[in-house]
């Protein structure tokens, strides 16, 4: 790549580049559910002119909406994180059979190293399993170019196309060439074609034959595709690689021969054989599973892969060097320090709920969101976390296993957006199958963990439009829950009273803890009190520390310091509230038996 004039180049993240590519490709409809590391794609796409972008309740819906738009002849995009593809797999596998009309691209943003995920599955397997071609860019530049290419391929070969990103592509910035948007040559409109769109067995059988023909044609294309290229160098070492791993290989072995794959399914067998024949030592460098390696081995080509390159976690230049040369670079030992894990924010409403819930010593089936951080000390308020919506089914299953003994012993905890994503159907199961599960919906008026996205319960859309706000309590009543109560989680006495009653109720109940996320602009603009610890009154009992609020700091004393501060020599320290961090939530003052926490008055 040569860098063109400054005004035509932007410094874009992979996600911004994918959004730009979709805009330049003339995409009209895009749907997604937020999920790290994919979220910024739709947020950025929504800002372009003349496009429609939406947050769907979940990834399955997002794929179905995008597919519908494709059926109607416009280019359409569905975006999700890797585990979102699990949710969306049902329509995806059959979209492979129906094919497309307007170009249809599905972005899967994988998360090797689990920076913000519950597993590190390798979604290249989905391309193979669903028989859908997959492109994999290696930086922002390619992310934009490949997005545009994906739409062209989709229409040419009548197939959905996967675009795979990873955290280090999505959240790395690099130079990107900016071009104009192009208009689609297709006329919008749904054309009736039951043999293509109605997947009754008889039609689907015929479509399967077409799918196999298509994948053979795609494999032939892969041999000629310029994104699959051999960079001949020193022939002693030849590396086959794709995605961000290519950059690490080039960084560490600038002189090696490299087969750089831009399409990871289907793979170019002839090109691989040609490359293998031209080098003395052949290595595959890929993150996670041996996807390319298995293909190379199936060709009968001898190659090194996962025996020298880790299967767990993401790669780095150092890991690639050590794998291939066997030699690491000596590095200073790093300092052993107190860890700095993420934490619930000061003033987070979730903290109040978990503090109270801890008193009941119940098993807490948890879910995916900011509140999952409550699993960490000191709250340690969560016992399970599997996937979006799993808390309700897990809690109900525990209850069915234990029978009556589970009464008052189990609760499910789930966020508002996660509940709407996939918590409604298990709630129906609980009602339908005569359970008594207590479900707590933490309604903080946003999809907080991914950076405050709108959802059906916020009353606003991704495009910034006001919309009908989903009524969580009414929804729960409508599926048959008779006991639905709303509490303010900052008011821990009220929350405790309601929990005490509902945990032991022999019927399903839903408790909605309602208080806005402290990161929401409306909350930040509000004038809030700031609290302080009166040093003379603090006995160092640490009752407030048990909240785990980042604003409450522990000041340790030596016996001499304690005496100097007019305390008993046995007092180990005292609490202090950092005024820069205090959000004024008023959770801690009632916890202090000595009334040492007071509001600062100007």
């Amino acid at each position, binding site marked *: 790549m040569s860098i063109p004039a*400054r005004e035509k*180049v932007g*410094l874009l993240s992979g996600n911004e580049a994918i959004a730009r590519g979709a805009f330049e490709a003339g995409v009209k409809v895009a749907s997604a559910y937020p999920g*790290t*590391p994919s*979220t910024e794609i739709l947020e950025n796409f929504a800002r372009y002119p003349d496009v429609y972008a939406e947050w769907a309740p979940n990834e399955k819906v997002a794929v179905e909406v995008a597919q519908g738009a494709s059926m109607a002849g416009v280019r359409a995009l569905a975006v999700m994180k890797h585990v979102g593809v699990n949710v969306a797999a049902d329509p995806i596998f059959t979209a492979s059979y129906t094919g497309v009309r307007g170009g249809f691209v599905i972005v899967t943003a994988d998360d090797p190293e689990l*920076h*913000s995920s519950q597993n590190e599955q390798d979604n290249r397997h989905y391309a193979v399993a669903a028989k859908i071609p997959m492109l994999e860019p290696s*930086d922002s530049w390619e992310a934009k170019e490949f997005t545009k290419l994906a739409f062209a391929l989709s229409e040419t070969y009548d197939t959905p196309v996967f675009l795979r990103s990873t*955290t*280090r592509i999505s*959240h*790395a*910035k*690099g*130079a990107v060439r900016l071009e104009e948007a192009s208009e689609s040559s297709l006329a919008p409109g749904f054309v009736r074609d039951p043999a293509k769109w109605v997947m009754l067995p008889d039609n689907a059988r015929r479509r399967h034959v077409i799918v196999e023909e298509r994948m053979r044609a795609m494999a032939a294309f892969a041999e000629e595709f310029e994104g699959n290229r051999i960079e001949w160098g020193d022939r002693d070492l030849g590396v086959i690689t794709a995605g*961000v791993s290519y*950059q*690490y290989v*080039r*960084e560490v072995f600038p002189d090696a021969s490299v087969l750089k794959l831009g399409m990871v399914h289907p793979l170019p067998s002839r090109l691989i054989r040609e490359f293998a024949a031209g080098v003395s030592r052949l290595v595959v460098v890929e993150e996670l599973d041996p996807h390319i390696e298995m293909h190379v081995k199936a060709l009968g080509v001898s190659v090194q892969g996962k025996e020298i390159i880790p299967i767990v976690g993401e790669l*780095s*230049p*150092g890991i690639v060097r050590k794998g291939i040369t066997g030699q690491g*670079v*000596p*590095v*200073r*030992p*790093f*300092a052993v*320090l*107190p*860890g*700095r*894990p*993420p*934490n*619930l*924010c000061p003033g987070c409403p979730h903290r109040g709920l978990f503090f109270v819930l801890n008193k009941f010593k119940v098993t807490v089936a948890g879910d995916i969101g*900011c509140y999952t*951080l409550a699993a*960490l*000390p000191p709250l340690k308020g969560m016992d399970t976390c599997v996937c979006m919506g799993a808390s309700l089914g897990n809690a109900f299953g525990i209850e069915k296993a234990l029978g009556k003994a589970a009464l008052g012993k189990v609760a499910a905890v789930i966020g508002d957006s996660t509940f709407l994503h996939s918590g409604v159907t298990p709630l129906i199961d609980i009602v339908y199958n005569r359970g008594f599960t207590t479900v707590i919906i933490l309604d903080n008026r946003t999809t907080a*963990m*991914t*950076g405050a996205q709108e959802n059906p319960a916020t009353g606003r859309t991704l495009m910034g439009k006001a919309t009908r706000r989903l009524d969580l309590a009414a929804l729960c009543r409508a599926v048959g829950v008779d006991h639905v109560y709303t509490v303010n989680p900052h008011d821990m006495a009220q929350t405790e009273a309601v929990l005490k009653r509902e945990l032991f109720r022999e019927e399903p109940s839903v408790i909605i803890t309602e208080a806005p996320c402290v990161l929401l602009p409306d909350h930040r603009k509000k004038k809030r009190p700031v609290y302080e610890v009166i040093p003379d009154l603090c006995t160092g009992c*640490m009752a407030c*520390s*048990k909240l*785990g*609020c*980042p604003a*409450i*700091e*522990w000041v*340790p004393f030596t016996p001499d310091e304690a005496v100097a501060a007019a305390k008993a020599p046995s007092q*180990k*320290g005292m609490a202090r509230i950092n005024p*820069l961090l205090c959000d004024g939530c008023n959770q801690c003052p009632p916890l202090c038996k000595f009334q040492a926490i007071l509001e600062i008055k100007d």
Partner: protein
Amino acid sequence: MKGARGNVFLAGVGGQGALLASEVLGEAFLIGGYDVKKSEVHGMAQRGGAVTTHLRYGPKVFSPLIEPGSADLLVAFEKMEALRFAHFLKPAGAAVVNAQEIMPPSVATGRERYPENIAERLAEVTPNLYLIDALAAALSLREVRAVNMVMVGAASHLLPLPETCYLEALRAHLPERIVEVNAKAFHSGRALMAPRGAGR
């Protein structure tokens, strides 16, 4: 000058604006005519956790990640975070460190102590340590959120770009109404470094 290449490692605590600072730095290098790559992790890390950015510039950059032992400059927004990532520095690398201390949960709840002698331990790692009070500089502008631009200003003293690149980048990345206070923060950061004669 444009033949120069370098690795800048930024470390801070979620909420300190380290990511925005890295945006401005990255944009400044692009304006200055360099190829740039920059990598960071969002999501969980934003909630008060450790936040890092790898920023690399040069005629052509491949890897978006900096290897341990190869950073030319460490820009740390919090004192302990400087020590946590000091192993990324080259032996002759420099560190610009905000003296601010932010307690991690284990320290705030009394289970561990905030480490002592951090400055001394950092000085063992790098001969070029610049410990500055960016929080005080930001507070003197009555804008606690400007700590990040104070740090950018301080770091700029050790980077091969003219001041105009940073100011243009700042205007490109910030809403109009806060450009002025952030430009002031940038200059106060630069001023913090100037008396030491470290500028280039």
